Protein backbone atom coordinates (compact mmCIF):
# COMPACT_ATOMS: atom_id res chain seq x y z
CA UNK A 1 0.00 0.00 0.00
CA UNK A 2 1.94 2.99 -1.24
CA UNK A 3 0.64 6.38 -0.30
CA UNK A 4 1.85 8.61 -3.07
CA UNK A 5 1.13 12.29 -2.88
CA UNK A 6 3.02 14.95 -4.79
CA UNK A 7 6.56 13.73 -4.35
CA UNK A 8 6.37 12.14 -0.92
CA UNK A 9 6.49 8.42 -1.21
CA UNK A 10 5.68 6.50 1.93
CA UNK A 11 5.19 2.75 2.10
CA UNK A 12 4.75 0.54 5.13
CA UNK A 13 6.44 -2.37 3.38
CA UNK A 14 10.20 -2.25 2.87
CA UNK A 15 11.66 -1.35 -0.51
CA UNK A 16 12.75 -4.44 -2.40
CA UNK A 17 15.96 -3.96 -4.33
CA UNK A 18 16.29 -7.44 -5.74
CA UNK A 19 16.28 -11.08 -4.84
CA UNK A 20 19.12 -13.49 -4.13
CA UNK A 21 18.32 -17.21 -3.88
CA UNK A 22 14.74 -16.56 -2.86
CA UNK A 23 15.70 -13.99 -0.22
CA UNK A 24 14.35 -10.59 -1.09
CA UNK A 25 17.06 -7.99 -0.62
CA UNK A 26 15.34 -4.98 0.87
CA UNK A 27 16.81 -1.55 1.50
CA UNK A 28 16.41 -2.13 5.23
CA UNK A 29 18.18 -5.49 5.08
CA UNK A 30 21.07 -3.95 3.16
CA UNK A 31 21.24 -1.12 5.70
CA UNK A 32 21.13 -3.67 8.50
CA UNK A 33 24.13 -5.46 6.97
CA UNK A 34 26.01 -2.18 6.74
CA UNK A 35 25.21 -1.45 10.39
CA UNK A 36 26.37 -4.93 11.44
CA UNK A 37 29.52 -4.45 9.37
CA UNK A 38 30.25 -1.06 10.94
CA UNK A 39 29.58 -2.40 14.44
CA UNK A 40 31.93 -5.32 13.77
CA UNK A 41 34.61 -2.98 12.45
CA UNK A 42 34.25 -0.76 15.47
CA UNK A 43 34.27 -3.73 17.87
CA UNK A 44 37.48 -5.15 16.36
CA UNK A 45 39.21 -1.76 16.41
CA UNK A 46 38.06 -1.21 19.98
CA UNK A 47 39.29 -4.67 20.99
CA UNK A 48 42.71 -4.05 19.48
CA UNK A 49 43.11 -0.69 21.21
CA UNK A 50 42.11 -1.95 24.68
CA UNK A 51 44.53 -0.90 27.40
CA UNK A 52 44.63 -1.38 31.16
CA UNK A 53 45.26 2.33 31.46
CA UNK A 54 42.45 3.57 29.22
CA UNK A 55 42.13 6.48 26.84
CA UNK A 56 39.12 8.76 26.80
CA UNK A 57 37.08 6.70 24.31
CA UNK A 58 37.74 3.53 26.22
CA UNK A 59 36.68 5.18 29.48
CA UNK A 60 33.37 6.17 27.88
CA UNK A 61 32.68 2.64 26.61
CA UNK A 62 33.88 1.07 29.85
CA UNK A 63 31.81 3.27 32.10
CA UNK A 64 28.72 2.76 29.92
CA UNK A 65 29.15 -1.01 29.99
CA UNK A 66 30.02 -0.98 33.68
CA UNK A 67 26.98 1.13 34.50
CA UNK A 68 24.66 -1.04 32.37
CA UNK A 69 26.06 -4.21 33.89
CA UNK A 70 25.65 -2.94 37.44
CA UNK A 71 22.09 -1.95 36.63
CA UNK A 72 21.38 -5.37 35.12
CA UNK A 73 22.79 -7.04 38.21
CA UNK A 74 20.73 -4.79 40.44
CA UNK A 75 17.51 -5.62 38.59
CA UNK A 76 18.11 -9.37 38.26
CA UNK A 77 19.52 -9.58 41.82
CA UNK A 78 21.80 -12.37 40.69
CA UNK A 79 25.36 -12.19 39.40
CA UNK A 80 25.13 -15.38 37.32
CA UNK A 81 21.91 -14.34 35.60
CA UNK A 82 23.31 -10.89 34.96
CA UNK A 83 26.45 -12.32 33.38
CA UNK A 84 24.39 -14.64 31.19
CA UNK A 85 21.86 -12.13 29.85
CA UNK A 86 23.85 -8.91 29.89
CA UNK A 87 25.51 -9.41 26.46
CA UNK A 88 22.13 -9.95 24.77
CA UNK A 89 20.43 -7.04 26.53
CA UNK A 90 23.32 -4.69 25.82
CA UNK A 91 23.52 -5.89 22.21
CA UNK A 92 19.82 -5.13 21.77
CA UNK A 93 20.46 -1.60 22.93
CA UNK A 94 23.59 -1.10 20.84
CA UNK A 95 22.16 -2.65 17.65
CA UNK A 96 18.86 -0.78 17.75
CA UNK A 97 20.54 2.49 18.67
CA UNK A 98 23.22 2.10 16.00
CA UNK A 99 20.60 1.22 13.40
CA UNK A 100 18.45 4.22 14.37
CA UNK A 101 21.35 6.67 14.33
CA UNK A 102 22.66 5.26 11.06
CA UNK A 103 19.17 5.74 9.65
CA UNK A 104 19.45 9.48 10.22
CA UNK A 105 22.50 9.87 7.99
CA UNK A 106 21.84 11.89 4.82
CA UNK A 107 22.36 9.10 2.30
CA UNK A 108 19.95 6.81 4.14
CA UNK A 109 16.45 7.34 2.81
CA UNK A 110 15.60 8.87 -0.48
CA UNK A 111 18.83 10.43 -1.68
CA UNK A 112 20.84 7.42 -2.84
CA UNK A 113 19.01 4.69 -4.68
CA UNK A 114 18.29 2.67 -7.74
CA UNK A 115 16.29 4.27 -10.51
CA UNK A 116 13.61 1.85 -11.51
CA UNK A 117 12.82 2.45 -15.15
CA UNK A 118 9.39 0.88 -15.23
CA UNK A 119 7.92 2.70 -12.26
CA UNK A 120 9.71 5.98 -12.90
CA UNK A 121 10.79 6.49 -9.32
CA UNK A 122 13.88 6.18 -7.14
CA UNK A 123 14.12 3.14 -4.90
CA UNK A 124 16.35 4.01 -1.94
CA UNK A 125 19.39 1.82 -1.46
CA UNK A 126 19.49 2.42 2.28
CA UNK A 127 16.55 2.93 4.58
CA UNK A 128 16.28 3.21 8.39
CA UNK A 129 16.38 -0.39 9.58
CA UNK A 130 13.63 -0.15 12.17
CA UNK A 131 11.08 1.20 9.70
CA UNK A 132 10.85 -2.43 8.60
CA UNK A 133 8.46 -4.56 10.62
CA UNK A 134 10.57 -7.61 9.70
CA UNK A 135 13.47 -6.18 11.68
CA UNK A 136 11.44 -5.13 14.72
CA UNK A 137 9.55 -8.41 14.66
CA UNK A 138 12.83 -10.32 14.48
CA UNK A 139 14.11 -8.42 17.50
CA UNK A 140 10.82 -8.99 19.32
CA UNK A 141 10.91 -12.73 18.60
CA UNK A 142 14.51 -12.95 19.80
CA UNK A 143 13.66 -10.98 22.93
CA UNK A 144 10.60 -13.10 23.73
CA UNK A 145 12.54 -16.32 23.11
CA UNK A 146 15.27 -15.12 25.46
CA UNK A 147 12.67 -14.20 28.08
CA UNK A 148 10.94 -17.60 27.86
CA UNK A 149 14.32 -19.36 27.90
CA UNK A 150 15.26 -17.41 31.02
CA UNK A 151 12.02 -18.39 32.73
CA UNK A 152 12.30 -22.07 31.84
CA UNK A 153 15.97 -22.43 32.80
CA UNK A 154 15.49 -20.53 36.06
CA UNK A 155 12.32 -22.25 37.28
CA UNK A 156 12.10 -25.47 35.26
CA UNK A 157 9.58 -26.06 32.47
CA UNK A 158 6.78 -27.34 34.72
CA UNK A 159 6.95 -24.58 37.28
CA UNK A 160 7.27 -21.96 34.56
CA UNK A 161 4.24 -23.36 32.71
CA UNK A 162 2.44 -23.29 36.06
CA UNK A 163 2.58 -19.52 35.91
CA UNK A 164 0.20 -19.61 32.97
CA UNK A 165 -1.85 -22.73 33.41
CA UNK A 166 -3.00 -23.57 36.89
CA UNK A 167 -6.13 -24.99 38.42
CA UNK A 168 -5.61 -23.94 42.02
CA UNK A 169 -8.55 -21.58 41.87
CA UNK A 170 -10.86 -19.97 39.38
CA UNK A 171 -9.17 -16.60 39.80
CA UNK A 172 -5.76 -18.21 39.49
CA UNK A 173 -6.85 -19.88 36.27
CA UNK A 174 -7.98 -16.62 34.70
CA UNK A 175 -4.92 -14.74 35.92
CA UNK A 176 -2.86 -17.44 34.22
CA UNK A 177 -4.77 -16.99 30.96
CA UNK A 178 -4.26 -13.22 31.14
CA UNK A 179 -0.55 -13.76 31.77
CA UNK A 180 -0.39 -16.04 28.74
CA UNK A 181 -2.13 -13.48 26.53
CA UNK A 182 0.14 -10.69 27.75
CA UNK A 183 3.12 -12.92 27.04
CA UNK A 184 2.05 -13.26 23.42
CA UNK A 185 1.06 -9.59 23.23
CA UNK A 186 4.64 -8.69 24.02
CA UNK A 187 5.60 -9.78 20.52
CA UNK A 188 3.22 -7.17 19.14
CA UNK A 189 4.04 -4.40 21.60
CA UNK A 190 7.77 -4.91 21.28
CA UNK A 191 7.78 -4.88 17.49
CA UNK A 192 5.19 -2.17 16.86
CA UNK A 193 6.50 0.24 19.49
CA UNK A 194 9.89 0.38 17.81
CA UNK A 195 8.48 0.23 14.30
CA UNK A 196 5.94 2.97 15.03
CA UNK A 197 8.44 5.32 16.62
CA UNK A 198 11.08 5.07 13.95
CA UNK A 199 8.66 4.92 11.04
CA UNK A 200 6.82 7.97 12.33
CA UNK A 201 10.13 9.78 12.77
CA UNK A 202 11.13 8.99 9.22
CA UNK A 203 7.77 10.16 7.86
CA UNK A 204 7.98 13.31 9.97
CA UNK A 205 11.40 14.17 8.57
CA UNK A 206 10.34 13.37 5.01
CA UNK A 207 7.32 15.64 5.32
CA UNK A 208 9.38 18.39 6.93
CA UNK A 209 11.97 18.05 4.17
CA UNK A 210 9.21 18.40 1.60
CA UNK A 211 7.71 21.54 3.10
CA UNK A 212 10.75 23.38 4.45
CA UNK A 213 13.93 21.62 3.38
CA UNK A 214 16.51 23.84 5.06
CA UNK A 215 15.70 24.62 8.68
CA UNK A 216 12.75 22.60 9.92
CA UNK A 217 14.41 19.16 9.73
CA UNK A 218 17.25 20.20 12.07
CA UNK A 219 15.37 20.16 15.40
CA UNK A 220 13.44 17.14 14.18
CA UNK A 221 16.70 15.31 13.44
CA UNK A 222 17.98 16.20 16.90
CA UNK A 223 14.73 14.87 18.32
CA UNK A 224 15.06 11.71 16.25
CA UNK A 225 18.59 11.13 17.58
CA UNK A 226 17.06 11.30 21.02
CA UNK A 227 14.20 8.97 20.05
CA UNK A 228 16.63 6.54 18.41
CA UNK A 229 18.68 6.20 21.60
CA UNK A 230 15.61 6.07 23.84
CA UNK A 231 13.91 3.37 21.77
CA UNK A 232 17.03 1.23 21.94
CA UNK A 233 17.12 1.69 25.70
CA UNK A 234 13.39 0.98 26.03
CA UNK A 235 13.65 -2.26 24.05
CA UNK A 236 16.65 -3.42 26.10
CA UNK A 237 15.16 -2.37 29.46
CA UNK A 238 11.82 -4.05 28.76
CA UNK A 239 13.65 -7.24 27.81
CA UNK A 240 15.56 -6.98 31.11
CA UNK A 241 12.40 -6.42 33.16
CA UNK A 242 10.52 -9.25 31.44
CA UNK A 243 13.48 -11.55 32.11
CA UNK A 244 13.27 -10.54 35.76
CA UNK A 245 9.52 -11.29 35.80
CA UNK A 246 10.11 -14.60 34.06
CA UNK A 247 12.78 -15.82 36.50
CA UNK A 248 10.82 -14.76 39.58
CA UNK A 249 9.10 -17.59 41.44
CA UNK A 250 5.32 -17.66 41.07
CA UNK A 251 3.40 -17.08 44.26
Amino acid at each position, binding site marked *: *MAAEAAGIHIA*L*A*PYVLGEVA*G*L*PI*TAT*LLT*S*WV*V*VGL*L*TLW*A*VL*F*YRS*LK*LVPGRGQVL*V*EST*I*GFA*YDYTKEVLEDDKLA*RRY*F*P*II*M*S*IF*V*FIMAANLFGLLPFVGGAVGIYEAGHDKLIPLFYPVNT*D*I*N*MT*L*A*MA*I*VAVLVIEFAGITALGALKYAGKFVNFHSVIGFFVGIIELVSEVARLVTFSFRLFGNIFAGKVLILVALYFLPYLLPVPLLVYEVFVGIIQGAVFALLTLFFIKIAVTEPH
Partner: protein
Amino acid sequence: MGDLIHTFGVDWKLIIAQAINFAIVVVVLGYFVFGPVMRLLKERADKIAEGLSAAEAARKDRETLAGERQSVLQEAHHNAETIVARAQDDGKNERATIVKLAQDRAEALLRDAQLEAEEQKRAALKASEAEIARTAILAAEKILRSNV
Protein backbone atom coordinates in the same frame (compact mmCIF):
# COMPACT_ATOMS: atom_id res chain seq x y z
CA MET B 1 -4.46 -11.13 8.42
CA GLY B 2 -3.00 -11.98 5.02
CA ASP B 3 -3.66 -8.44 3.91
CA LEU B 4 -1.93 -7.11 7.01
CA ILE B 5 1.11 -9.24 6.36
CA HIS B 6 1.21 -8.05 2.77
CA THR B 7 0.78 -4.40 3.75
CA PHE B 8 3.67 -4.48 6.15
CA GLY B 9 5.73 -6.65 3.83
CA VAL B 10 6.22 -9.32 6.47
CA ASP B 11 8.44 -12.09 5.15
CA TRP B 12 9.75 -14.84 7.43
CA LYS B 13 12.97 -15.01 5.37
CA LEU B 14 13.63 -11.35 6.15
CA ILE B 15 12.79 -11.94 9.80
CA ILE B 16 15.31 -14.78 9.93
CA ALA B 17 17.90 -12.69 8.08
CA GLN B 18 17.49 -9.86 10.59
CA ALA B 19 17.60 -12.30 13.50
CA ILE B 20 20.88 -13.64 12.10
CA ASN B 21 22.17 -10.08 11.85
CA PHE B 22 21.34 -9.56 15.50
CA ALA B 23 22.97 -12.87 16.43
CA ILE B 24 26.15 -11.71 14.66
CA VAL B 25 26.01 -8.45 16.63
CA VAL B 26 25.61 -10.37 19.91
CA VAL B 27 28.55 -12.65 19.13
CA VAL B 28 30.81 -9.88 17.85
CA LEU B 29 30.05 -7.44 20.67
CA GLY B 30 30.24 -10.22 23.25
CA TYR B 31 33.59 -11.45 21.97
CA PHE B 32 35.29 -8.15 21.17
CA VAL B 33 33.69 -5.66 23.55
CA PHE B 34 31.66 -6.89 26.52
CA GLY B 35 33.85 -9.85 27.48
CA PRO B 36 37.17 -8.00 27.27
CA VAL B 37 35.76 -4.90 28.97
CA MET B 38 34.29 -6.91 31.84
CA ARG B 39 37.58 -8.77 32.23
CA LEU B 40 39.48 -5.49 32.11
CA LEU B 41 37.20 -3.88 34.69
CA LYS B 42 37.71 -6.84 37.00
CA GLU B 43 41.45 -6.86 36.40
CA ARG B 44 41.62 -3.16 37.17
CA ALA B 45 39.48 -3.54 40.29
CA ASP B 46 41.85 -6.31 41.44
CA LYS B 47 44.87 -4.12 40.70
CA ILE B 48 43.37 -1.25 42.66
CA ALA B 49 42.52 -3.49 45.60
CA GLU B 50 46.06 -4.87 45.46
CA GLY B 51 47.52 -1.37 45.35
CA LEU B 52 45.35 -0.26 48.25
CA SER B 53 46.35 -3.21 50.41
CA ALA B 54 50.01 -2.65 49.49
CA ALA B 55 49.68 0.98 50.48
CA GLU B 56 48.03 -0.08 53.74
CA ALA B 57 50.86 -2.53 54.43
CA ALA B 58 53.41 0.16 53.66
CA ARG B 59 51.64 2.55 56.01
CA LYS B 60 51.70 -0.08 58.78
CA ASP B 61 55.37 -0.75 58.12
CA ARG B 62 56.09 2.92 58.33
CA GLU B 63 54.21 3.21 61.59
CA THR B 64 56.11 0.27 63.08
CA LEU B 65 59.38 1.77 61.91
CA ALA B 66 58.46 5.14 63.37
CA GLY B 67 57.63 3.47 66.70
CA GLU B 68 60.90 1.59 66.61
CA ARG B 69 62.85 4.70 65.83
CA GLN B 70 61.11 6.48 68.68
CA SER B 71 62.04 3.78 71.16
CA VAL B 72 65.61 3.62 69.85
CA LEU B 73 65.89 7.36 70.18
CA GLN B 74 64.49 7.25 73.67
CA GLU B 75 66.92 4.56 74.68
CA ALA B 76 69.80 6.49 73.16
CA HIS B 77 68.72 9.59 75.03
CA HIS B 78 68.53 7.67 78.23
CA ASN B 79 71.93 6.08 77.69
CA ALA B 80 73.45 9.42 76.86
CA GLU B 81 72.06 10.89 80.04
CA THR B 82 73.47 8.04 82.11
CA ILE B 83 76.83 8.36 80.43
CA VAL B 84 76.95 12.08 80.98
CA ALA B 85 75.90 11.67 84.60
CA ARG B 86 78.53 9.03 85.17
CA ALA B 87 81.14 11.14 83.44
CA GLN B 88 80.19 14.08 85.62
CA ASP B 89 80.48 11.94 88.75
CA ASP B 90 83.79 10.56 87.56
CA GLY B 91 85.02 14.04 86.84
CA LYS B 92 83.97 15.25 90.25
CA ASN B 93 85.79 12.38 91.96
CA GLU B 94 88.84 12.87 89.81
CA ARG B 95 88.90 16.54 90.60
CA ALA B 96 88.68 15.85 94.31
CA THR B 97 91.51 13.36 94.05
CA ILE B 98 93.63 15.73 92.03
CA VAL B 99 92.98 18.61 94.40
CA LYS B 100 93.81 16.43 97.38
CA LEU B 101 96.97 15.22 95.72
CA ALA B 102 97.98 18.76 94.93
CA GLN B 103 97.31 19.85 98.46
CA ASP B 104 99.35 16.96 99.82
CA ARG B 105 102.22 17.74 97.54
CA ALA B 106 102.05 21.41 98.38
CA GLU B 107 102.13 20.60 102.05
CA ALA B 108 105.06 18.26 101.55
CA LEU B 109 106.91 20.91 99.60
CA LEU B 110 106.24 23.44 102.27
CA ARG B 111 107.45 21.12 104.96
CA ASP B 112 110.65 20.34 103.03
CA ALA B 113 111.24 24.03 102.49
CA GLN B 114 110.81 24.78 106.19
CA LEU B 115 113.14 21.97 107.15
CA GLU B 116 115.77 23.20 104.71
CA ALA B 117 115.42 26.73 105.92
CA GLU B 118 115.92 25.65 109.49
CA GLU B 119 118.94 23.62 108.48
CA GLN B 120 120.41 26.58 106.69
CA LYS B 121 119.74 28.82 109.66
CA ARG B 122 121.41 26.38 111.97
CA ALA B 123 124.34 26.01 109.59
CA ALA B 124 124.61 29.75 109.32
CA LEU B 125 124.55 30.10 113.08
CA LYS B 126 127.22 27.49 113.44
CA ALA B 127 129.34 29.18 110.81
CA SER B 128 128.98 32.58 112.45
CA GLU B 129 129.84 31.10 115.88
CA ALA B 130 133.08 29.75 114.44
CA GLU B 131 133.82 33.10 112.80
CA ILE B 132 133.20 34.93 116.01
CA ALA B 133 135.50 32.55 117.86
CA ARG B 134 138.25 33.00 115.30
CA THR B 135 137.86 36.75 115.35
CA ALA B 136 138.00 36.70 119.13
CA ILE B 137 141.17 34.60 119.04
CA LEU B 138 142.73 36.93 116.50
CA ALA B 139 141.81 39.91 118.59
CA ALA B 140 143.27 38.26 121.69
CA GLU B 141 146.47 37.42 119.85
CA LYS B 142 146.75 41.08 118.66
CA ILE B 143 146.25 42.37 122.16
CA LEU B 144 148.80 39.93 123.59
CA ARG B 145 151.34 40.87 120.88
CA SER B 146 151.12 44.55 121.55
CA ASN B 147 151.40 44.16 125.33
CA VAL B 148 154.40 41.95 125.15
